[in-house]
């Protein structure tokens, strides 16, 4: 079946969130599918860290304010961890 627009949007949002957290909040890239549920907790934990850093409401969910912040042009150096 063609992907519904909502599902497509959701997939893009998840991609944006994962890539942002991988780039700037040290979210590991290689999640095993069977650890899906663990992966989601892991992602929510990193998302909370990002929301905390930017003084956003710490929801662990990609709410509009969080997505807006993720879309802002920025420096490529991570906000946490080393960059060597």
């Amino acid at each position, binding site marked *: 079946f063609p992907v519904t627009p909502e599902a497509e949007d959701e997939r893009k949002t998840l991609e944006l969130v994962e890539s942002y957290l991988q780039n700037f909040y040290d979210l590991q890239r290689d999640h095993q599918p069977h650890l899906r549920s663990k992966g989601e907790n892991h992602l929510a934990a990193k998302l909370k860290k990002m929301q905390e*850093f*930017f*003084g956003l409401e710490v929801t662990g969910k990609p709410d509009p304010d969080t997505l807006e912040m993720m879309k802002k*042009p*920025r*420096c*490529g150096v991570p906000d946490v961890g*080393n960059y060597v």
Partner: protein
Amino acid sequence: FTTGNPKWKRNQLTYRILNYTPKMTKDDVDQAIQKALSVWANVTPLTFQKVEDKDADIVISFAYRDHQDNSPFDGPNGQLAHAFQPGEGIGGDVHLDEEEEWTKDGRGYNLFIVLAHELGHSLGLSHSNDPGALMYPTYSYTAPSEFLLPQDDIDGIQAIYGQSNTAVQPTGPITPRACDPNLTFDAITTLRGEIIFFKGRYMLRKHPARTETELNFISLFWPKLPSGIQAAYENVERDEVLLFKEDKYWVLRGYDIAPGYPKPIYRLGFPKTVRRVNAAYSDEATGKTYFFVADRYWRYDEKKRSMDHGYPRKIVSDFGKIGRVDAVFIKDGYVYFFHGTTQFQFDPRAKQVVGQMKSISWFNC
């Protein structure tokens, strides 16, 4: 600070410009780099010497997509640049994404601002979560001529390299925090139902329907407006906001600065002896606008578009002991005067002060 506290072992550092972007003249790039280096040199004992054709501590280059440092760029916007903490080889180097629209002004991305940020990393700083800091991760434009290194960044870099050798230690702007009880304002106005509080290069935006207060750079909304707005008022009928600084004023029509501004305040009928306006508000009910200058005030008729006769008058004669007015706005029929951290609620019908609050009473602290 960066994990492990990396720093350069000596204060005399070298830098090299590996290549240039075709989007700016070579001179403009050189100037942006020199100005960005001086931002840090001015507040520390660090010195930066340019070298050509040999290795340097800090190598500045424009790079495209995957440029062999395991951190590929992502095309226009998104990631603008990155830099590496102090160390051998790639350590200290700055890479700028060639696909960005690099400029020397407010269009695209200002090379000076981005470089100054990245050089902070080259010297050992990481990101700050102070939204007004240079080392805040997201890009925000400040006119290079108006740029002052924020205190947060000065504190950070001096903790690594110590203070500058100058007799007078430089200080920088501190980011206003809505619930700081010592917060004072430069100017305040309503704008289409919201209240805008001006402070330095910032504006605090309060929407009656939202609990939190939004802090932004003035330049985020109006790049042509200077920082340090001194007075502002909304003419609701004309859907305009007038903003004042020194002897000039700008008009905001809707959300855009009207063309042809700034204009001299003398067009409104001020005598040449007036050099600046401290505060202003416009009463929609009467069509009268009040301008406060030192201990006096003028009244302006918005319909006749000229000053009323018999002015200026002493503030104390008609508004009571509210002292010098830093900022003022009118809302729901009451006038709110700000003097330092004190706010007076004035009833124009009863012609008297009916309440006194803290300056930050609007921020749900």
